[in-house]
């Protein structure tokens, strides 16, 4: 897993909270920094793809680790 600057644990949260929390976390970060997000909502896989596409933030990685979904998003 690549390096990251900040981490957000959205485990147990359901739509749309993982996206909203990620948006908030990214808002407090500098451009080019990477946010790692952990989620358990299966819908978050497609949602983070769509989030990245629509906001311009780059989805570097999307995968599964120990039964949870893990995403790396680089702030635009």
């Amino acid at each position, binding site marked *: 897993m690549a390096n990251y600057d900040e981490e957000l644990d959205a485990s*147990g*949260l*359901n*739509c*749309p*909270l993982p*996206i*909203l929390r*990620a*948006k908030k976390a990214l808002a407090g970060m500098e451009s080019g920094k990477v946010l790692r997000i952990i989620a*358990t*909502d299966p819908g978050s896989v497609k949602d983070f793809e769509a*989030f990245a596409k*629509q*906001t*311009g933030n780059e989805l570097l990685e999307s995968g599964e680790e120990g039964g949870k979904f893990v995403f790396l998003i680089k702030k635009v």
Partner: protein
Amino acid sequence: MEEKKLAIIATKGTLDWAYPPFILASTAAALGYETEIFFTFYGLQLLKKDLDLKVSPLGNPGMPMPMGMDKWFPTILTALPGMEAVMTSMMKKKMADKGVASLEELRELCQEAEVRLIACQMTVDLFDMDTNDFIDGIEYAGAARFFEFAGESDICLYI
């Protein structure tokens, strides 16, 4: 990239139907949409400080019920006193268990994200509603105000 716009009309005041406007508006705001919700008729309940919303199994054959009751429980019995309260507390518990945000939280997230919330003035007058019962930071206006924004919107939803 020009900011997209989402306009929503929220017309329903039950616990289940309170979710779509706030979920969609908060998500849209997170995606960079400029968003407005116009609350009319029963939708005004969603702007009350004290959200005491209920869900009713009556006349709602699509509502999943425990023990497969939606398949065998006679419809007329869903009208019994107390059924609404039971189903409401079960729905709230289920939502909390599944990590679904509370309506208060979603509404706050909308306000934080600068989603504009507009209460229909006509409905307030019609039902003699007390504006002191509503949350702060909302606007009171009419249909023309809605079209000012909706006419420019990319997406317009009636919920």
